[in-house]
């Protein structure tokens, strides 16, 4: 027996057949003619046959009209009269477009399904987001038609995704790609099941929008003007939000932030005082939320006394720049709010409200607190302010009376999954404007990478701006498809951090150990551990909410700890300049914490200054054991979460840094153990206990590091190698700059190693000895022999 949905689909198709369409138009044309004849017959008598024919011609029009209504209804309500028992029939679980796909799949096979699916622009868009083009998808599907068992599996899977609703095209295709033997499609395109679900949900919502738009939304009508008073001064400094805001909000949904909107509506209906400030960092969407609030108010959707109010935006900058004195400003504010009170039905939005309430009265601000407070307390005045948390605390929060009249609602950044959906809604704009297409992987990358590398900006604005930048740059370079690689490149350019692991980078990462050894002699265990941590970070296994790496280097002076840090900055960040050193001995006393974390924006402290200049760098905390306990405690969060809050409330982001703390703690133990022939592994294991017992570091502090790395005293061989390294640098320099060949004998190398090595200072004295002994000797010989390019010098003794 043919199922209801198949019968209906066939009926709809036959009704939309061009021949039936022609018949329909003809019947309408004859019907209208017949109407005119019948009306005319009431005015002037006509031949009875003509009138009879006219009446007869109305019948086909009535038939076609009735059927058209039925078809329209069925298309809007595909689940009409399909009861639970009827759902047991497989086809009755589908809406019409997906049912058409199912029938094509069943009879004509996989390739025909693709053709059927891409007839719909939205479905085509959905598949393209995954990078699935006609060419790629054909390669995944076998020629043959699926078995009935496979069809059942797809239906079952689709029904699970549809959660009780009829199966749509998106759900149907999603289910096909989730089939165990077809999952390869998702795997090859690097699409996770959650990505697929998110995209299905997004496209279903877009698809449903076309039906939502037909609903009637009131706007108050022509009498609204009569109910409001003249507002001449208010009009001068405010702009009314137009009714068309609805079109904007429809295309820019705020998703889970609807609950925030409800809170805002509640605040504006408190009763005693009805004003509120939205606080949040720049770019979190305060204005966006306000637009949605305005839309709800204008179109009678709040279901509160606010419905039908006029919503206006106060032009703060225009107001401040147009006034000549504070007295004038106070007078204007009184007039404006007088008009608002008289008008009764106005909600006013004041962005950067702190500019009007700033006690310090810096340039571009004014302190109108005294004149504003009575209006904030007046229930007839409804103000929605916006500013960031710091400015709110500074201007409003510091005054209890003001804070009570003007409470705040903190708007946090949207969750990561919501950011993806927000961006999906926004990219259409850029795609249309710049003729480009964002793959889903690119959208995901924008969200993930901006979260890690652009953390000085706030979501969702930073993602939207980044998407726009990508669209512009892709369009300029003639690219049409934006993938995740392109996103990595652009984010890398903006943040100055090498993000994408390209072939050259892979080479560096895989050869990190030998690369580090080119500059650091010995310390094999330490170098191996550091290299492993960095490979983990660059390959994406790293937790993105922490610094790239955190290490504590323990060991005596002059054994290569600082040199390792320098080498890392050169290899990882491309320059040894990208290393900032803090001498932690400077933060040993009670003022240490203030010096490190500042006291005010004018005196922001060492960490804030450093990270603002080098957001991506190696941070060397030298002699960490000498800093005060308070400083060490403050650093715990930095090591754990990659961020730290200054004493004046600013959050500093260290997620793009490698943090290296060095310490000489336990050096005595290391030396003694080496003298007693204790192995390096045992020393490393026992050293942690030694420094804890000696109260150098607490266990929780040590646990925060990715690695506590032991640096051992240098052996004589290693000292020799260091001397050779330094000497070869001098030889290369002379060859490059003067063209003079210099050779140094092994006995001289040995002598320099003996003289340059100090058990207390390691290889630190080496540079000085090489300069004093070797470089001076070479300089003398150059002068004595008048050496020029091409000549050679031999150093056999010092």
């Amino acid at each position, binding site marked *: 027996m043919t199922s*209801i949905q198949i019968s209906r689909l066939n009926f709809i198709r036959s009704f939309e057949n061009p021949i039936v369409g022609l018949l329909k138009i003809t019947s309408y044309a004859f019907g209208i003619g017949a109407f005119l004849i019948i009306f005319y017959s009431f005015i002037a008598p006509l031949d*009875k046959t003509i*009138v*009879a*024919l*006219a*009446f*007869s011609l*109305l*019948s086909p029009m*009535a*038939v076609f009209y*009735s059927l058209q*209504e*039925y078809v329209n*209804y069925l298309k809007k*309500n595909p689940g*009409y*009269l399909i009861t639970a028992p009827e759902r047991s029939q497989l086809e009755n679980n589908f809406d019409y477009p997906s049912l058409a796909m199912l029938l094509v799949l069943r009879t004509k096979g996989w390739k025909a399904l693709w053709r059927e699916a891409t007839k719909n622009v939205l479905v085509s868009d959905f598949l393209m987001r995954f990078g699935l083009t006609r060419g790629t998808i054909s390669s995944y599907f076998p020629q043959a038609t699926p078995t009935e068992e496979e069809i059942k599996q797809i239906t079952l899977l689709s029904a699970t995704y549809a959660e009780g609703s009829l199966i749509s095209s998106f759900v149907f295709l999603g289910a096909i790609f989730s089939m165990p033997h077809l999952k390869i499609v998702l795997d090859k395109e690097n699409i996770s099941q959650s990505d697929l679900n998110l995209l299905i949900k997004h496209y279903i919502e877009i698809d449903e929008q076309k039906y939502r738009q037909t609903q*009637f939304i*009131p*706007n*108050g*009508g*022509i*009498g*609204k*003007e*009569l*109910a*409001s*008073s*003249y507002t001449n001064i208010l009009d001068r400094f405010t702009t009314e939000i137009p009714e068309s805001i609805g079109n904007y909000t429809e295309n820019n949904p705020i998703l889970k932030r609807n609950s925030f909107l409800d809170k805002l509506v509640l605040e504006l209906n408190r009763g005693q005082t009805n004003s509120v400030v939205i606080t949040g960092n720049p770019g979190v969407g305060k204005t966006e939320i306000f637009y949605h609030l305005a839309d709800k108010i204008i179109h009678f959707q709040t279901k509160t006394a606010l419905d*039908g109010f006029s919503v206006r935006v106060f032009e703060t900058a225009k107001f401040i720049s147009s006034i000549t004195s504070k007295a004038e400003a106070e007078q204007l504010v009184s007039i404006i709010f007088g008009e608002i009170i*008289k*008008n*009764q039905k106005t909600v006013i939005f004041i962005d950067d409200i702190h500019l009007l309430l700033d006690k310090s009265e810096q340039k571009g601000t004014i302190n109108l607190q005294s004149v504003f407070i009575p209006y904030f307390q007046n229930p007839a005045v409804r103000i929605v302010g916006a500013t960031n948390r710091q400015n709110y605390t500074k201007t409003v929060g510091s005054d209890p009376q003001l804070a009570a009249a003007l409470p705040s609602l903190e708007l946090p950044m949207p969750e990561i999954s919501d950011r993806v959906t927000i961006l999906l809604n926004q990219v259409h704009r850029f795609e249309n404007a710049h003729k480009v297409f964002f793959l889903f992987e690119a959208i995901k990358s924008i969200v993930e990478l901006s979260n890690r590398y652009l953390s000085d900006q706030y979501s969702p604005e930073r993602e939207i701006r980044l998407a726009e930048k990508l669209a512009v740059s892709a369009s300029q370079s003639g690219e049409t498809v934006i993938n995740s690689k392109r996103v990595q490149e652009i984010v890398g350019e903006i943040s100055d951090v090498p993000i994408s692991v390209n072939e050259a980078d892979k080479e560096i990462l895989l050869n990190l150990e030998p690369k580090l050894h080119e500059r650091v002699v010995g310390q094999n265990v330490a170098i191996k551990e550091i290299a492993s941590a960095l490979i983990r970070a660059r390959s994406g296994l790293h937790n993105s909410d922490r610094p790239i790496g955190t290490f504590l280097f323990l060991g005596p002076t002059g054994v290569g700890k600082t040199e390792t840090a320098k080498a890392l900055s050169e290899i990882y960040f491309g320059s040894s300049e990208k290393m900032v050193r803090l001498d932690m001995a400077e933060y040993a006393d009670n003022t240490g914490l203030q010096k490190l974390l500042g006291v005010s924006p004018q005196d922001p402290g060492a960490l804030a200054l450093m990270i603002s200049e080098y957001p991506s760098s190696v941070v060397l905390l030298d002699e960490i054991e000498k800093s005060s306990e308070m400083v060490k405690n403050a650093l715990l969060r930095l090591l754990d979460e990659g961020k730290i809050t200054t004493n004046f409330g600013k959050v500093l982001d260290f997620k793009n840094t490698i943090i290296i703390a060095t310490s000489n703690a336990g050096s005595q133990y290391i030396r003694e153990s080496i003298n007693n022939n204790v192995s390096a592994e045992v020393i490393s294991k026992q050293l942690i206990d030694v420094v804890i017992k000696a109260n150098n570091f607490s266990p929780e502090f040590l646990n925060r590091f990715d690695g506590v790395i032991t640096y051992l005293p240098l052996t004589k061989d290693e000292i020799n190698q260091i001397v050779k390294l330094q000497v070869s640098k001098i030889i290369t320099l002379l060859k490059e700059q003067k063209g003079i060949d210099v050779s140094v004998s092994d006995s001289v190398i040995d002598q320099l190693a003996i003289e340059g090595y100090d058990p207390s200072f390691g290889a630190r004295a080496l540079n000085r000895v090489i300069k004093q002994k070797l470089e001076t000797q070479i300089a003398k010989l150059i002068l004595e022999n008048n050496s020029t390019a091409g000549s050679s010098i031999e150093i056999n003794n010092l």
Partner: protein
Amino acid sequence: MLFFKWWYGAGFEDQIKRFKRRVLYFSDFFSLSLLTATLFSPYKNDVDSYSGGVTAQIQQLKEGLISRFVGFWIRLAIIIAGSTVVGVLSVFNCLWLAIWAMMPLLVIALPVIGVLQ
């Protein structure tokens, strides 16, 4: 059968919904509820609270009454115009619902009516 079930069930309900929507649209367009609620309010809400001496207050009262008088007539005119439109619309809609109910019958009846004319 399913078609007739729809025609006198969900189809008819759908027509009533459309009827409601049209009435709501025109009621909103002519602001019928808002204008009725503010029928006796001053024209454009342009009266300040009373202040000054007795003469000034009497003057303000006079101006207020004139404003309310003007406001009343303008509002009433719009209410009458709007109500007429809504009324006419309702009559046509009721007629349409009757035609809808008879439509299946009319398809057969119309040729017969024509012959009987």
